[in-house]
């Protein structure tokens, strides 16, 4: 039993990458949910983006039905998206900062009653 578990633990496969990427994703989510500084939130979002890419590439390596790098291509698309997102996001943050002189997410409560 322990042998099998050990074997599973030491033979790196798809599951390892998935758990890695999932954990990374949720750490990023933690930053999004729990940090006050809006730039930290943005950083959390970036972490989440990256972790998704690990998934794509891992799936491409282990489960692709064709000898193609579709996962990689999509990872690149995601990276491009992330770049665009961070640009727009930072622009928004700076724009808000100019108006409210604050980077605290809790001050961004326009939607309040």
């Amino acid at each position: 039993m322990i042998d099998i578990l050990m074997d599973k633990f030491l033979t790196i496969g798809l599951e390892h990458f998935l758990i890695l990427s999932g954990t990374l994703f949720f750490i990023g989510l933690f930053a999004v949910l729990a940090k006050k500084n809006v730039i930290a939130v943005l950083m959390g979002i970036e972490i989440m983006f990256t972790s998704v890419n690990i998934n794509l590439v891992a799936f491409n390596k282990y489960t692709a039905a064709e000898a193609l790098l579709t996962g990689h291509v999509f990872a690149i698309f995601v990276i491009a998206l992330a770049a665009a997102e961070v640009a727009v996001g930072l622009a928004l943050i700076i724009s808000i900062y100019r108006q409210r002189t604050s980077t605290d997410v809790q001050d961004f409560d326009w939607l309040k009653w």
Partner: protein
Amino acid sequence: MTMAVMFYLIAFVTLGSAFMMVISKNIFHSALLMLISFIGVAAVYILLHADFLAAVQVLVYAGAITIFIVFGIMFTMKGDPRKTNPFSKNAIPAAVLILLFIVINAVTVIKTVWPFSNIAPPETTVKAIADLMLTKYVVGFEVTAVLLLAAMVGAIVIVKGVKKSS
């Protein structure tokens, strides 16, 4: 065995730095830890034989995005840098939630039976990616290009503000 050691090392670095990034009270440290985490992810790509992606990861994330973030920090930072990155009031429920998520994720991944295939992906990734991207996914490629342009224009407009026409 080497593979396992490398994997766990990289995973530890990636997750550890990401976690520290969240924990850190100094936003500047957070940004640097995020950089380490990104590089760790690049190493994961290498483990996955995705050398081109690893390079892109280093260039875009570790290079461009981190620089962006650091610019943002510098634009908005004020006061004591050691108190720049506190937790909000949601920290505890969020932590519980995240733990739950991580457990759920792990259990799900382990319990799921994955449809493994034995087909090996091409070794030379750059050419393969280029082929795919400029043939099958050329539309997506173009759209991404437009998106980047739009994001750039949008970012400039948002930051500069639009002059109100009378």
